[in-house]
């Protein structure tokens, strides 16, 4: 096997950090994405404008710049608020925006914008006749959402969500720039210390490819599940 010169365990720890950052920011992105999509589809004009501003701004600025802004600037902003609380109400709290939090929040925020667009398109793709049919059956709007709208929306959204996840996964590498010890940072440190050019970078690249391949398989399975009942129809159309 390959001799990782003692860096093996740390590299694995780094891989775990990468996965943690990716999964947590995915969850944040999904929540933000659903909120954004509902805001964009709502008739409320202010909500609509806020959501549009959010998606436009986020998609116009590089991930790394946003991350540096939040990591270096976010703490100062948060402090201004906690200091104000302290002087006004004698409430003494300290909120620590460390590398991990800055990474997760930034990536979650960025991909929330992309997820928002995906969800919006998917909601619009659901046949309105289906919702009407639900109403005709006397279903409550919550039940319609759960039984009809959400499952069908997911069917349309899944390819886009899968795609966003793949991009998100690769974006996690940026947290190494603000100092979080993910696998990219550890591989870079190991490369510089041991002067072994590709010994650490290639395994890390392979881990990324592995996670991507596993996700691809997972998305395909989910796709199959949400496509239940549509398989035959598609064949007919062809």
């Amino acid at each position, binding site marked *: 096997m390959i001799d990782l010169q003692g860096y093996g365990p740390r590299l694995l720890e780094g891989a775990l950090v990468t996965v943690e950052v990716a999964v947590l920011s995915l969850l944040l992105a999904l*929540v933000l994405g659903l909120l954004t999509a*509902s805001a964009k589809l709502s008739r409320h004009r202010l909500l609509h404008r806020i959501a549009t501003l959010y998606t436009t701004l986020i998609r116009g600025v590089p991930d790394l710049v946003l991350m540096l802004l939040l990591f270096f600037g976010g*703490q100062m902003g*948060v402090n201004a608020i906690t200091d104000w609380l302290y002087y006004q109400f004698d409430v003494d*709290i300290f*909120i*620590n925006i460390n590398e991990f*939090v800055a990474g997760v*929040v930034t990536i979650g925020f960025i991909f929330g914008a992309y997820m928002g667009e995906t969800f919006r398109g998917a909601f619009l793709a659901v046949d309105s006749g289906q919702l009407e049919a639900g109403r005709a059956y006397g279903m409550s709007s919550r039940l319609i959402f759960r039984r009809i709208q959400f499952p069908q929306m997911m069917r349309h959204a899944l390819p886009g969500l899968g795609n966003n996840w793949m991009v998100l996964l690769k974006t996690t590498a940026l947290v190494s720039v603000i100092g979080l010890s993910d696998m990219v940072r550890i591989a870079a440190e190991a490369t*510089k210390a041991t002067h072994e050019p590709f010994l650490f970078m290639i395994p890390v690249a392979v881990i990324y490819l592995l996670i991507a391949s596993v996700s691809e398989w997972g998305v395909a399975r989910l796709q199959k599940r949400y496509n239940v009942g549509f398989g035959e129809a598609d064949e007919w159309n062809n």
Partner: protein
Amino acid sequence: MKKLLTLTLLGMFLATGTAEARGTDEVRLAIDVPYEPFVYRTPEGELAGFEIDLGNELCARADLECTWVEQSWDGIIPGLLSRKYDAILSSMAITPERENQVLFSIPYYNTPSVWITRRDRDIDISDKASLEGLSVGVQRGTIRDSYVTQMYGDTLDIRRYSSSQDVANDLVAGRLDLSFEDYPLAVDTFHFNEADSEFKQIGDSIKKPVSIFGKGAAMAFRKRDEALAEKFNAALRDVYADGTFDELMHQYFDYDLSLPVGE
């Protein structure tokens, strides 16, 4: 919908970090690792070095419970201001820009900066015209960055790195023509005083102008923590007065980097 929003906000707040109450007698000291021989990690992962020993000694004398926090140079002042730790003890030179942000202790050491290049190179640092197109590596946001930017910004190709280690690596690799480094760090990394070293110092050691290099390295505190700074000032005078500083210094350096206290 409203409930969902509240829950989300709450979740985000929790995700945004741990809310902590401020400590009492515990003092957290920040340091940028590694900066040999001031600070480095032993193979077992322990922090060691001149500044670690000095800091521990100061804390013992001031009767404070100290813990070390590792922090990259980029974020070391914002981290102090944002209370991630209570003081910086990391070879930070006193400069006017920094004095706007933080409160400095009395300086505890002062070392010059030096130009380093490969032994086989023939570079005359005083002849500005001959420097055109050569590259120099510095750590971003240090006094050495300020110096080369101000003095050589229009001739040298200045490359700014996140850590001094990266500068050293690229000089060794042959990617840089020059490095402008803190003297003790340069001794430790390039061994340029030894006959068989691949590197050499060129030009004089540089300590001036004071407007850039400052009066020396000092601890940094938040401006309102004057009492804490005073405790460390007293401890610093103390270790200087009874010779402990010299003793520690000679464990790591074979030259003098001490200052007349109170200068």
